[in-house]
Structures are given as C-alpha cells and as structure tokens.
C-alpha cells in the first residue's frame, strides 16, 4: 500500500485554497493537506519551528509567488538552498505570465511554473491536471526516516 502523501499549499487566497484542496482530494482521497497562508508560516512549517514542531515533511509543495510577509521567491530560495528540503518538488502556481518572472523562478530552481487562469473553470481544470500528474505519474522522493 502506498503511504499517505503530504501536500503543502502556500497560498493566501482562501478561494484558491479551497479549490486546490478539492482538486487534490478528487485524485487521492487519503491525503494530508496542509496550508500556509504566508511565506513566514511556510518556512516555519518546513523547518518545524514553534507550533509546527511535529509538522510532517511534504511530498510536494505548491507555492504562490505573491504572499504576505515573505514573498514566494524568497520561500523558494530557502527551500532550494536547504540540503534537506531541496529534493521536495516545488510547483509554482501564480497569476504572473511575465517572462522575467518565469525565467527568475526557474533560476531559483522551481520544479515547474504554472500560471493561474482567471476563469474559474480553467483554473479548476489546471489544478486537477497538476494534481493528477504529480500524484499519479511523477515519482516523488521518499519520506526520510526521522533521526532518533
């Protein structure tokens, strides 16, 4: 039996959070789905600081770029410069279509870049296809055993 996968969604818009959660649950109903509403909370979760002392390591991270307190680009740099965290596939999902943003995000080693469509149906479709691809096609790095 496959182990339960853990997703960390870093997103400040409640509507996008709800839609993304539903799309992922539609693909795999047994899923641990965590949400960080800003960049500072995301980094605390990943580093298991403060109230996140027992946070599980995510198998996949979905990251918005425009976030309160700490920008998504900064969060991405933290993840991809950390020897322990950098193997976690990090998918950027954002409203920006600017080439400079796309280039910069790949320079920061995002695993892939997706633009949020404005229309609700198109956004739902994109999230569904993203969840199917990463949960059922891609091989994700295994969870590391806790060191005692």
């Amino acid at each position, binding site marked *: 039996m496959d182990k339960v996968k853990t997703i960390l969604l870093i997103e400040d818009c409640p509507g996008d959070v709800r839609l993304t959660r539903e799309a992922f649950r539609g693909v795999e109903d047994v899923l641990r789905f965590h949400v960080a509403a800003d960049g500072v909370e995301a980094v605390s979760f990943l580093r298991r600081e403060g109230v996140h002392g027992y946070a599980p390591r995510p198998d996949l991270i979905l990251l918005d770029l425009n976030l309160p307190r700490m920008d998504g680009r900064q969060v991405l740099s933290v993840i991809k410069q950390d020897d322990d965290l950098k*193997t976690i596939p990090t998918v950027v999902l954002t409203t920006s279509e600017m080439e400079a943003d*796309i*280039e910069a995000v*790949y*320079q920061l080693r995002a695993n*892939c870049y997706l633009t949020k469509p404005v229309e609700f149906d198109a956004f739902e479709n994109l999230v569904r296809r993203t969840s199917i691809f990463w949960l059922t096609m*891609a*091989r*994700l790095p*295994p969870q590391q055993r806790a060191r005692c």
Partner: protein
Amino acid sequence: MNRIVLLVEDSPGDVRLTREAFRDADPQIDLRIAVDGVEAMAYLRQEGVHIDAPRPDFILLDLNLPKMDGREVLAHIKEDDDLKTIPTVILTTSDAEADIVTSYKLQANCYLSKPVQLEEFESLVKSINDFWLTRVKLPQQALSN
C-alpha cells in the same frame, strides 16, 4: 509555437516509441535525439556537428546511458548558468529510491519511471505532452542565441 524537445535515450526501441507517441499527441513537436551523454552535452553546447542546434525547450533524460551517465549529464545541465533553466525530466526504468533522491538533489525538474507495458508508456508520453508542453510555462529561448 513549435516546441523543441531533446530526448537523451540510447535504446532505439524507446526512441521510436517516444517519437510515435509524441507524433500522436502533437505532430508539431520537434523531437531531437541524443543517443549518449556525450552527444547530449555536445548538442546543448552547440559543439562540432551541433553548431546550429536549437536550444531545446524541454529535455527528457534517461539515466543509464553509454559514454556519459544521465546523472552526470543532469549535473552538467544544472551547473550551467545558461542551460539550467531548461526543464529536465528524468525518464528511466529505474524505480530505485536512491536514483529518485539523487536526481532531485541534482535538480531534476521531475522523475518518471518508464512503464513496462506499451500502452502505459504511450499514455505517459501523452501526459508529458499534456502537462509539461501544454500547461507548464517554459522559459523562453535564450536571447543570446
């Protein structure tokens, strides 16, 4: 826009299957082949006969290759300031956790296992086309070219 895909694969059977599956999915895709790691790097660096090789939008890379291993090719791509933004997806028969971890450490954009069944292989190539070449925003061609 025609996407240029570089497939780095030494098995002629897998090359043929991948080519046919891409053709079914989108005939516009311009699929280029490198049959070993040395040729892949020569293509990407536009060396020798590859002097006019266009920069690929996307790379599909096998791990077990003659002359230069796929892991080494991946390391070279991701250490090169010009090449590292090209999304590079591993497509291999290996299911070993060590290979998955090493590939993501070397900054592979994604790791895919080749299915043994023909139909599943075709369906995987269709998914790659549908997700990576259709939905994902890829970096634009380098302006320096």
